[in-house]
C-alpha cells in the first residue's frame, strides 16, 4: 500500500479552482519533488495535505496510509504523521519554542496512546537535534519564531520535523529566500531524517535544493495539474529551459 495516494484532486480557494485533477502516489522511503511556476498550485497542494480549511476540496480523494485524509482535522492529520514545513512560519509571541515542540510531541504521543514526555526526557533530545541544525540553545526559550531571521525560521521548521518524526514530510518552498549556508544546513537536517519508512514531498521553485537533497522523482505542476513526471534529470532540464515551454503548451491547450 502506498503511503500517500492522491486521486484526481480538485481544490478551490475563494471559489477559484486551483487544483484541477492532481494524481500522485508516494511510497514510504521515497523523495518526491514538486516543481512548477508561481501560481501553479504547489502551495495549495501542501495546504490541502495539511488540512488547512481555507482550501476547499471539490473533488477527488487522498488516502494516507489507507485512511481518508480529507476526513481529518489538521491535528488529526499531524498525529497520523503528516508534517508541513511552512513556507512562511508563523510567529507566536508568548509560547516558548521548547514548550511548543514538547506540547506537539505529547499531543501526538497521546493520540497513539503513548506516555507523555516530561522535560527531563525531552530536553536532551531537543538539544541534540538543535545541534544537527546548528541552532543556538538560546532558541529553546525564545518565543516560537518571534524575531527569527528567515533562515532561522526555516531551520526551526526542520527542527520540528526532526522532533516529530512524521511519516510524510512536506517541505513547502523551504529553500526560498535561503542563502547557501542556510540551505546546506536545512538539507543536512532533511537528509539526516531520511529513512525507509518516511517519505518527503519537496516543493520548490528552483532546482538548487535538489543539489543537496537527492530526489527520486520530479513532478512538474502547471495550472493545477501534474504535467510531467520523471527522475532527477527532469529537474535539470527544467532549470535549463525554464517552465515557459510547459506553460506555453498549457496556455495553448486552454480555450481563450
Amino acid at each position, binding site marked *: 500500500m502506498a503511503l500517500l495516494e492522491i486521486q484526481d484532486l480538485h481544490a478551490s480557494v475563494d471559489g477559484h479552482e486551483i487544483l484541477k485533477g492532481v494524481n500522485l502516489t508516494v511510497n514510504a522511503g521515497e523523495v518526491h519533488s514538486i516543481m512548477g511556476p508561481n501560481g501553479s498550485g504547489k502551495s495549495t497542494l501542501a495546504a490541502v495535505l495539511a488540512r*488547512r480549511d481555507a482550501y476547499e476540496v471539490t473533488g477527488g480523494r487522498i488516502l494516507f496510509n489507507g485512511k481518508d485524509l480529507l476526513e481529518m482535522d489538521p*491535528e488529526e492529520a499531524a498525529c497520523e504523521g503528516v508534517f508541513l514545513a511552512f513556507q512562511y512560519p508563523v510567529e507566536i509571541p508568548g509560547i516558548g519554542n521548547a514548550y511548543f515542540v514538547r506540547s506537539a510531541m505529547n499531543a501526538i504521543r497521546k493520540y497513539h496512546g503513548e506516555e507523555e514526555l516530561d522535560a527531563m526526557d525531552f530536553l536532551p533530545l531537543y538539544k541534540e537535534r538543535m545541534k544537527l541544525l546548528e541552532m543556538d540553545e538560546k532558541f529553546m526559550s525564545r518565543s516560537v519564531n518571534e524575531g527569527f531571521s528567515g533562515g532561522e525560521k526555516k531551520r526551526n521548521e526542520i527542527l520540528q520535523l526532526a522532533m516529530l518524526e512524521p511519516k510524510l514530510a512536506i517541505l513547502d518552498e523551504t529553500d526560498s529566500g535561503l542563502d547557501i549556508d542556510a540551505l546546506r544546513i536545512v538539507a543536512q537536517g532533511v537528509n539526516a531524517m531520511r529513512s525507509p519508512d518516511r517519505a518527503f514531498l519537496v516543493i520548490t521553485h528552483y532546482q538548487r535544493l535538489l543539489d543537496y537533497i537527492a530526489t527520486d522523482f520530479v513532478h512538474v505542476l502547471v495550472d493545477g495539474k501534474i504535467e510531467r513526471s520523471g527522475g532527477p534529470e527532469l529537474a535539470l532540464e527544467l532549470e535549463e529551459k525554464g517552465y515557459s515551454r510547459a506553460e506555453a503548451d498549457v496556455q495553448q491547450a486552454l480555450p481563450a
Partner: protein
Amino acid sequence: MKTAAKAMGNERTMATETGRLSKYFEAYEEVRAHGLEREPVWLQQLREDGWARFSARGFPSTHDEDWRFTNLATLAKTPFRRAAKGEFAVSPAQLEPWRLAGAACQLVFVNGHFAPELSDLGSLPEGLLVCSLAKAIDCGREECAPEGIEQHLGRYADMSRDVFTALNTALWEDGAYLRIHRGVTLEQPIHLLYVSAGAGAEIATHPRTLIIAEDASQAAIVEDYVSLGSEAAFSNAVTELAAGQDAVISHFLVERENLASFNVSTLRIEQSRNANVDSHSILLGGGLVRNNVHPVLNGEGAECLINGLFVGAGRQHIDNYMLVEHARPHCNSRQFYNGILADHARGVFHGRIVVHKDAQKTDAKQTNRNLLLSDNARIDTKPQLEIYADDVKCTHGATIGQIDEAQLFYLRARGIAEADARNLLLYAFAAECLDRMKDSAAREFVEGLIRERLQELASAVQAAAPAATQEDETQNWEEVG
C-alpha cells in the same frame, strides 16, 4: 428599546439622592459615632469632608465623561449595608483556598474589619510594620503614631474628583497599614486579603490601605479581593502608596470576587525622586469592576510600570481607568493592559496621561491590547494625552482582535488539538503581563490564578459554542447615553 433604556437611565440619575443613599447614610452615622469616641479630630474632619462630597454628588452617571462606558444603576439601587465587626463568622478552613504560598505575612479583613485570628503575621523582618490601620491610629505606639499617618492618609487620593474616594474616606473602618523602613528589602510578598462574606446579606465595605515605603526600601504587596459566598457585595477600596526616594515597590491588585459583586478600587501612587513602582492589576472576577490607577511621578527620575490583565466572560464588565501624571522632569511611565473578553463581557480601557508644564523629558508609553472571543464581547478603549510641556515623548496604541487563525492553524498542524491550541494562544496573550513582573512568589501566585481562569474560560467558550444564539437585549450594566 433604546429610548426606554435611556429614560430609565435618566430616572436613575435623578434618584441618586437620599432614598438610594440611605444605607450609606446609616453606615456613615455608625462609623462617625464610633469615631467621635476614638478618632483624632483630623480624621473626623476627613470623614466629614468625604461624606459632604459624596452626598452632594451621589454616584456618577454615564453623562460623566469618566464614567461614559460604565453604568452604575444596578450598584446604586442595590441596598448594600454595613457589616458589624464579627457579624459573619469565617473559619480558617474557609480561607485555605485563598492563601498565597510563600507570603511573608497575610493580613485578613472580613467585610472590612481586621480579623487577627485569621491573619498570619509570620515572623516579620526588622524594619517592617504591618498592622491594621484603625488599630495603628488607635494604639498610640510611637512607631505607628497617628501623626505619621496623618501626613499621608487622605493626602494623595483625590476626593474632589472621585466620589468613590470620597465615599471610602467617609466610611472606611479598616484596612492595612504598611510601613517599610528606610533601606529595608523584603524578599517575600505581603498578602492583604479582603474577604466579602455576607452569608446572603448584601454588604458594602470600604477598605482603606496605606503603604508608606520609605527611601530605598523594597517590597511587593498583593492586595487581593475575594468572596466566600455567591451573594453580591460592594467593595470600594482606596489604597494610597507613598514611595520614597529610590524605593522599589511592586503592587499587585487581584480581583477574584464572585460574578454578582461590584468592585471599585483606587490605587493612588505618589512617587518621589527615582522611586520605581510597578502596579500589576489582575482582574479575573467580579461582575462590575472599576480599576482606577493613578500614579503621580513627583520626583525627578521616577519610573512607573502600569501593567494589567483583565479577563471577562458572561456579563462581566471591567473598566480600567488609568491616570498617569508626570509632574517632574525625566520620568518614565509604561502602561500595558491586555484584555480578554468572551460571551457578553465588556471591557473599558481609559488611558489618560497628563504631562505637567515642568515635566520636560517625560517618556510615557501606553499600550492596550484586546482579544475578543465572541461577537457579543465589547471593548471601549480611549487614550487621552494632555501635554503641557514641550520636550516629551508620549506614545499610545490600542489593538482589538480575535485569536489569530494563522497561529491557530500552525499549532494544529503540529498535532495540538484545537481547544488546546486556543488555550495556548490565550495563555500566551495573557502571559505578556507576567513577563513584566519581577520573579517572585507573587508572580507565581498570579500565574496560577491566570491559568486557572483561562482554563475555565476555554471550557466555557467551548461548551457555549453550539448554542451561539442568545437573546441580546438584556444587557445588565450598560446602555451608554
